[in-house]
């Protein structure tokens, strides 16, 4: 296989297989969860379930509304930068392949600049996990591995953007595919569960008039 067809394979076929795999796995999980019994509220509402759900999803963007982010604004900013980095690194796997015309040198630098802080935050996360006894106590190999593999994903993403060699570009796509295969099984799948959990919690709290607070 020459380098051109190899690159085509890792950017198209491999990604298609990996994404299909991930979607199938998530679908199975979603079906499994939705088949579990759910004790919905029966008493008439004191507030609004819909408002509760909106607030529940929105609170992550309203750091002043929740003590754990309000009192640790630095941590919340780090959390936000990290997830922006994740989002850009994921979006880049599509834009790089499907909209090459959009990927001007300026865009590449902007994307890299948005991913780079996530690497820095990732090291802080790793350090905290090792150094804080209450975090070390609950950390599993999956926690460390997920963190380090994301670092690798970010790093190859930046290198592919800045250098654009076959080596870095193919590394980026191979790691992306490996990631897509692994994600449904690891704690990284939290971003899918988030939508279920926030819906259920928000609906109950909203229904009972607990959130949003006046």
């Amino acid at each position, binding site marked *: 296989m020459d380098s051109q067809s190899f690159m085509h394979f890792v950017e198209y076929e491999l990604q298609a297989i990996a994404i299909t795999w991930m979607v199938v796995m998530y679908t199975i999980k979603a079906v499994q969860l939705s088949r579990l019994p759910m004790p919905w509220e029966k008493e008439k509402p004191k507030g609004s379930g819909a408002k509760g759900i909106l607030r529940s999803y929105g609170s992550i963007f309203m750091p002043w509304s*929740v003590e*754990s*982010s309000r009192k640790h604004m630095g941590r919340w900013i780090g959390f936000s930068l990290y997830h922006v980095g994740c989002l850009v690194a994921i979006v880049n796997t599509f834009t790089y392949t499907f909209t090459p015309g959009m990927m001007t040198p300026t865009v590449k630098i902007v994307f890299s600049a948005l991913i780079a802080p996530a690497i820095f935050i990732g090291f802080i996360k790793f350090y905290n996990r090792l150094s804080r006894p209450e975090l070390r106590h*609950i950390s*599993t190999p999956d926690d460390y591995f997920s963190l380090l593999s994301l670092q690798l994903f970010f790093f190859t993403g930046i290198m592919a953007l800045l250098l654009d060699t076959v080596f870095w570009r193919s590394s980026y796509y191979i790691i992306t595919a490996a990631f897509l295969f692994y994600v449904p099984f690891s704690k990284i799948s939290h971003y899918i569960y988030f939508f279920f959990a926030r819906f*259920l919690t928000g609906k109950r709290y909203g229904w009972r008039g607990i959130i949003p607070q*006046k």
Partner: protein
Amino acid sequence: MDTREKVIQELDKRYNRLVGTSATNLCTHCGWCIESCHIFKATGNPEHSPVAKAEKVRRVLKRKHDWLSRLFPKWTGAKDLTESDLDEWIEAAFKNCTLCERCVINCPMGVETPQILATARGVLTAMGKSPEILNQLTDAAIAREENMEMMEGFFRKQIANLEKQVQERMNDSNARIPVSEEADILYVPLSGAHTMVPAALIFNAAKANWTMSLFEASNYGVFVADIPKAKKVVERVLKEAKKVKAKTLVVTECGHAYGVLKWEAPKWFGKQFDFEVKSLLEVMNDYIQEGKIVLDPSKNSEPVTYHDPCNIGRKGGIFEEPRNVIQASSKEYKEMTPSKVENFCCGGGSGMVACSEWTEDRLLYGTVKVEQIKKTNAKKVVTACDNCLHQIKELGEKNNLNISVSNVSEHLANALVFS
């Protein structure tokens, strides 16, 4: 069937969508919940963080329900259950968590740690390992109905004595405590007179059409997550409400009883009840707003603060009503910080007050509450839950806070002006 199989079977019975969502990969072990917990803040012990407590149960659930944990348990921290795990569950679910849900509102993901630990409580009860006294109090509540012929005599004698107190305080020989008679309002008290006399004063002053329940509102079945028994405890009151043709069931100032009768029991029975369920806090507020009672705030002249019980506030949705009542009946009100949905648990919730073997731990877990109370400079703490009332009284004595503690109705009754 060995212990492990039985535990898994009991876990399966309780594995619903809420537990299932929180029990696999939703938690990223980020640690944001850690400092939200009053118990971790009091001890600093890594074992006491919400995530660490949930993890003791979650690792067993993951072993069964999470794909990766089935293949490589060590990789995800999952494990097969052992006998010693159950002892750890007792510590995590009963002793070191009051199910206050403060961690839930502080979790960026919405992990419902108390749902996981309440599941563990139910399993431990099924395995005969939950605290004996909580089970005894549940059974005693059921025995009260089963032995009603004998009990009713004791109860009516007690009420007759309390009725005299009410008449003396109101200087009105017509003031009454009707018991289980036909009425619009069925008021469900606790066993203690402090939940009967003030309420009777308020209902009489407001000229309400009310009656006192033969039963107590508290439901220890919910603390041990024994839902069949908890339903039996509720059924006694449902039958009585039907008998007296009540339009409104008013629950006394008891956190878990309000949570059960207002929100949880309709789910257990699969329907909304034929009558409205209200907290006494809401009714007192209504009477003030409607001008049905007259108050003299100068009778409560000391600075007063309010402690939001978790089951009334963060889990129940009642925040403003008690504040309105207290402010209308006091000269000086001081808000606690934080309060309302972010208030800290007093440390005595979810049955801890009744578990005498953990008294020292419980008083330690009230450390944050003690600091909160001190900062208000209030001389009186008013709350709306008997567990909180017990706990804050003991905290006050142990820490020389020089405070008085009462429930909201007692505080209001003290300011009542009888015409």
